[in-house]
């Protein structure tokens, strides 16, 4: 009788390891942030003079996943009739033209400079480092129980002639 051997080759090939794309987790985190940011545009009202032209979101610092995600959002969403414009901001001086300024955690030290540049304007300052909502930021991302949450400083929002809906206030951790 002809001897038959077990063929393992195809089995072993199929058992090969699945590989995680390197930035998959960063993309997922950026998606959460983008959903939050889109929510901010629904629950916060800018003055009439800011309702013309593009709705500018400036990102201070380097985060390719976040900028990519915001650009993706910009292709399908608007703020009323305004189209989103996502800008990578290098210097705080560029922040004066933004509706939303998102300061990445690595650039948190630039918050005072940004605050100086947006004085008298209507910009929503969003930060990503514990404690910054008490230091001038309007909305700050923080982590609680592995979850991304937001703390909101109402007076830091209203200071810039922005109106915040009570719904957003209730869904946030309030900071004074």
């Amino acid at each position, binding site marked *: *009788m002809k001897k038959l051997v077990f063929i393992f080759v*195809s089995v072993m090939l199929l*058992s090969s390891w699945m*590989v995680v794309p390197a930035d998959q987790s960063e993309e997922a985190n950026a*998606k959460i942030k983008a959903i*939050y940011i889109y929510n901010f545009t629904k629950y916060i009202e800018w003055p009439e003079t800011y309702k013309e032209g593009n709705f500018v979101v400036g990102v201070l610092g380097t985060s390719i996943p976040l900028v990519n995600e915001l650009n993706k959002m910009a292709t*399908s969403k608007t703020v009323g009739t305004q189209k989103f414009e996502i800008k990578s901001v290098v210097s705080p001086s560029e922040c004066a033209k933004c509706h939303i300024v998102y300061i990445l955690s690595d650039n948190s030290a630039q918050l005072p400079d940004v605050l100086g540049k947006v004085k008298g304007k209507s910009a929503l300052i969003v930060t990503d480092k514990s404690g910054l909502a008490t230091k001038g930021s309007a909305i700050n991302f923080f982590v609680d*129980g592995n979850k991304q949450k937001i703390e909101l400083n109402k007076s830091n929002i209203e200071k810039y002639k922005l109106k915040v809906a009570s719904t957003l206030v209730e869904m946030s951790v309030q900071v004074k």
Partner: protein
Amino acid sequence: MLKLRRTLIFGILLLMGFVSNAQQSKVTAAYTFLQQGKLDSAKANIDAAVVHPETIGDGQAWYIRGFVYKTIYNQTEKANKESKIRIEALISFKKSLSIDTAQENVQENIKNIKYLATTLYNDAAASLDTIDYKIAVKNFDIFREYYLLVDPSKENFKRKEIDFANAIATVYTRIYEGDRKGKVDFLNLAKAAYNRALAFDPNNINANYNMGILYYNQAVNLINQSDYDLDIVALNDVQDNSINLFKASLPFMEKAYSLDPNRKETLLGLSGIYFSLNEKEKSNEFKQKLEQIGK
């Protein structure tokens, strides 16, 4: 009256002897036809013999039937991964083995069962794709049944169970990845298959890593599939569910890491899981290890 009864009994006995001889000669005829290569005739004769009460319990008849069917399989059905002829051959050898009180064909029966079971295993392996996976599962189940019959050493079989479970899990994962919304069942099948591999060997690095990745990807997909319109309350639910999945992924990935601390894929996986759990320090720790290995 008595004479009539005696004649009747004699007649019945004569007929029984004739039938008995006729059945035995059918077995002989089947064997002769087999040797002559006349497989249809061999099959017809042996099929008739094994259903007759006189030879249904004859181990030799069943052995010959197995041999006839095996020869038909080898000559005409080898390309057919779902060959019923092969199954009939296996049934026949098994039957012969169970009733062969004279122990005439024990070794031959075992050898033939092993041979045919091996063809089933190989066909199962060759069917491990997104189209023929059901054939793979069916063939492996039959292979298991018959192989364990002739080689009951569970230890020898363990490796094959693990390899197959890992491989079929990979196939299920591919099907799921092709249509995440429509084929969720396959995600569960993949997890069940990896669990099966891990039940045989909790230290199987492949099953641990891939199970970790399954949960990890499920969590990431949950977030990435969310619409930008999601309100914050719903986003919190998405985050809760994804965190549970990231946490479910962690022990498998940690186990894979403990089994091979220098495997790049595991370090990348752990860095990703901790990043997603917003434990940035731990994430960076694994990222740094990964960079050190890369140097």
